[in-house]
């Protein structure tokens, strides 16, 4: 009886597999991001840190972080910008060098846990309700129910002396959140027409998952990776304090761990500078991550 006027406007929230359309979402995201002032400040600071890290990695600066020829606990001066620590190492060089460590930890953990989370999440979601899903959910449940620091400590001890024990432990616990989000998204996506269409014309399941479904969860992965990055460098601090952190080299966490004995003697250089560097990066990353979430959240696009 009733007749409906056509709706010629393309609904933005419908996800289809047209890559042109996906591009437009990304273009939009970049556009939105560039207008988010706090987000851009965050991103610039992160990039600045990243350049510093690259410089360390290339051996351009902070190469003298391990030298021990300075005086003990020198105050800030033209020679030692941030003073020196107990064994005469330059706190400035160490704070700078730690930027590399932070990115190493953050990137390794963020990338690996995102990959694992994406794969397992996608598998669980695609095969939701089957034994594959059950097993992955079980694994996730198990890993989530072991207290984090105990788990990391246990992994560190089990892999005694392995320099990547901390990374392994973090990756094995951090993927679960990503996995859960991806699983949910995949369950939603797999009922979309483009997936059913692909299935109908006999595209293999693996191809469906990797070519058609996973790319559409990319916005989740990106946001989640930034969150994991922050979580990883923050955890590193605690783990280093507990003696489970970075093994060779130096990190802000190790500097803060060193400082716990110094601060009450009035030597604040390690504590203050490591804290400032750490806070700066985490804060910037949080700001960037927030902006990214804002830019990628279609609901927010609609409401603003």
């Amino acid at each position, binding site marked *: 009886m009733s007749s409906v006027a056509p709706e010629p406007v393309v609904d933005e929230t419908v996800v289809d597999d047209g890559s042109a359309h996906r591009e437009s979402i990304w273009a939009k995201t970049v556009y939105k991001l560039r207008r988010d002032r706090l987000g851009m400040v965050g991103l610039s600071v992160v990039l600045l840190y990243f350049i510093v890290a690259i410089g360390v990695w290339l051996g351009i600066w902070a190469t003298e972080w391990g030298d021990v020829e300075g005086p003990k606990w020198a105050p800030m001066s033209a020679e030692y910008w941030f003073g020196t620590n107990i064994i005469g190492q330059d706190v400035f060089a160490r704070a700078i060098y730690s930027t590399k460590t932070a990115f190493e930890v953050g990137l390794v953990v963020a990338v690996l846990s995102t990959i694992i989370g994406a794969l397992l999440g996608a598998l669980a979601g695609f095969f939701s309700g089957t034994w594959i899903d059950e097993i992955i959910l079980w694994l996730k449940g198990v890993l*989530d129910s*072991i*207290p984090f620091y105990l788990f990391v400590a246990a992994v560190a001890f*089990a892999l005694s002396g392995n320099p990547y024990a901390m990374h392994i432990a973090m990756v094995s616990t951090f993927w679960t959140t990503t996995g859960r989000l991806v699983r949910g998204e995949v369950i939603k996506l797999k009922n979309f027409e483009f997936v059913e269409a692909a299935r109908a014309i006999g595209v293999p399941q693996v191809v469906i998952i990797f070519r058609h479904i996973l790319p559409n969860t990319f916005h989740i992965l990106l946001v989640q990776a930034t969150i994991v990055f922050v979580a990883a460098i*923050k955890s590193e601090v605690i783990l280093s304090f507990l003696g489970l952190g970075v093994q060779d080299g130096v990190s802000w966490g190790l500097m803060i761990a060193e400082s716990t004995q110094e601060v009450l003697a009035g030597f604040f250089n390690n504590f203050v500078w490591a804290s400032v560097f750490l806070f700066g990066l985490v*804060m910037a990353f949080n*700001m960037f991550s927030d902006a990214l979430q804002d830019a990628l959240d279609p609901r927010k696009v609609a409401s603003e």
Partner: protein
Amino acid sequence: MEVLQYAIRKLLGGIPLVLGVTFISFLLMVYFGPDKTYELLGKNPTQEQIDEIRHELGYDKPFMVRYGEYLKQMATLDFGASDSTGEPVSKVLARTVPISLALITPGFILGNVLGILLALIAAYHRSGPIDKYIMGFSVVGMSISFLIVVIAFQIIFSSSYGLNAFPVRGWNVHSFSDYLRYITVPTLATIFVALGYNTRFYRAVLVEEMTRDHVRTAKAFGTRPGKLLYKNILKNSMIPIITRIMFSIPLVVVSGSLIIESYFGIPGIGKVTYDAITTGDQPILKAVVGLTAVLFVITLLITDILYRVVDPRVSLK
């Protein structure tokens, strides 16, 4: 009856989880964990003495036998005595768990309650300056490492360089005022850090709920904003809130207080467990990890039942 049946089903369903947790923990913490042998040795040991101690500690038994023993201990809840102090594990737990609970409960509750309050305020003033201040504070709180806060707070509140108003460390509690003195600084630190995350999370939950159609409906029928917040929105947000709170409980009980306990020298379960890891005190580890897993399953169950209480759409199937 329905709930009871559900509870039994759910608890049985939790068995694979408990098995998984115990197995992985056993593998990591016990089988590949630190070796107690060399701490129990005298200064100039012979190979024979080493073997004797390994035998005493049961290290020479095959893996599955040891895991089997563990499961048996889980079933009977009898974990024997600590390898370090010889104190029965049950006594250790009975001594330390209440301390940990007493230590973290105030911070945990206040952290969440204040978080929800701030989130309500921020959500109410959404996009306004108050919201921006609160969220700015929350991002700052999220960006400061817990360790930094703990160190700084101890200097500020407890040391003779600062206010010198609270005990630096320890746990010498004879009265309620002692208790307050000892928990104040740890609680403040916990709240400070938790608040950032909690406020942000709860605000997101509330704001999401505020954009729902039924909220607009309620507004369209003249519901006052206050009532809207605490009746409609809060109750609708209970599922994520409950989830967050409930799931932190098992972890908070054990590891949440680890840093606090070791820095403030409070003999709670977190410190004891951590010490057990670093010294390879396996009976304690087995008990803590196993019981945490069981606690998790129970938490899952209670959480589900709570869901049912706050949301009629959830069915206990």
